[in-house]
């Protein structure tokens, strides 16, 4: 069962927007769909060792352009309380897809938590999609 929240954002600079968020627990080596934007893209994730692999499936009629090295993101990561056992992590991803007026830019922030006693990793994500 895929539980995702997808809602429209207030326009910014005249550009409409959409926010998608979801969370999923995965076993190592398992691939699963994390986010789905109908007619735009599908984001899959795969936990491989200590790495998180992402797959963007382009569902739009236009080309997909993955943006530069998202690992250099200057976003902040903050922790509160005893989060050490969960080994929180973070990753960023950006891409543009679609064509013409329907071309959109997606900025995805992913966060991870480890649950060693269950042998699972929780991957949560928020994607902000706006007209490019």
């Amino acid at each position, binding site marked *: 069962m895929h539980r995702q929240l997808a809602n429209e954002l207030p326009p910014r600079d005249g550009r409409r927007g959409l926010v998608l968020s979801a969370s999923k627990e995965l076993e190592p080596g398992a691939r699963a769909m994390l986010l789905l934007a109908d007619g735009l893209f599908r984001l899959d994730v795969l936990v491989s060792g200590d790495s998180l692999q992402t797959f963007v499936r382009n569902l739009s009629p236009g080309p997909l352009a993955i943006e530069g090295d998202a690992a250099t993101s200057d*976003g902040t990561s903050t922790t*509160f309380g005893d*989060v050490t056992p969960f080994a929180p992590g973070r990753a960023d991803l950006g891409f543009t897809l679609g064509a013409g007026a329907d071309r959109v830019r997606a900025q995805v922030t992913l966060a991870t938590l480890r649950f060693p006693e269950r042998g699972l990793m929780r991957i*949560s994500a928020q994607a902000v999609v706006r007209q490019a």
Partner: protein
Amino acid sequence: MADYIRWRLAAARLGVTMAFFALLGGLADQAAAATSAGAGAAPAANFLTDLSIPAGGLNRVVLKLDSALATLEHKLNTSFTTTHKLNQTFLKIKSANTSFLKIKSANTSFLKIDDANSEFLKVDSTAANANELGGLSPQAFFQGTGSVVTGAISSLAQNGVATSLLSVPGGIEVSIINAAIGAGGLQVQISNPSGAALAAVVNTGTGVAEHDLNPGTTSFAFATNGLSPPAGQLHIQLFPNAGLAEVVTIIISLEESTTTNPSFVGQAFAGPS
């Protein structure tokens, strides 16, 4: 140049004077020759008073010489004036060469305005690729302004007191309340410091509903799966308003707990806007 002209004028006057004297000398010689031919030796020093020139002849010569001299002086004056005017009006080639740059030399040494305008950027101008990095526009790079906050509560006493779990950018505080079943049970409390109602969409695990979080705090009952040990997840989206610049997503889960002191872990995303 003017000095030179004056010198030439003086020299010409001197030359005319000398010619005049020479003419007089010639006349004197003629007179002397005539005298000697007729009367033998004659004094050479009195030629002015003993000329055989007809009366009025010397005056005509003098007048002619004066006329020639005047003509010459006029010519010299005209030439001097003309030269003076030329000197005032025009630049000498030699002076120009020493004072000014030749076009050919300038072309080889300096840049033309048109070429500069087409080749170089003006001081207050912005290059067409000024915003690019490595030939790529800013849109080609991910601008990671989003924030991630992770919090955990390892053992929450059942005392009905709000315990902070997350402090989200924008001033939003997320707390957990563990109260007795009769007092509300497990609750998630979210503060709204924005001063205006915050639109929210909440998935409690049993359904999705829209809420307006008024300024202050709002509590949601934390639904568990009813299993033993209980588990559950709360998923909230908060939307920007006048006091909240970025969209916020909060995901909180109840971890396995066999006691009345459950543990919680949560993550929040703020932005990018």
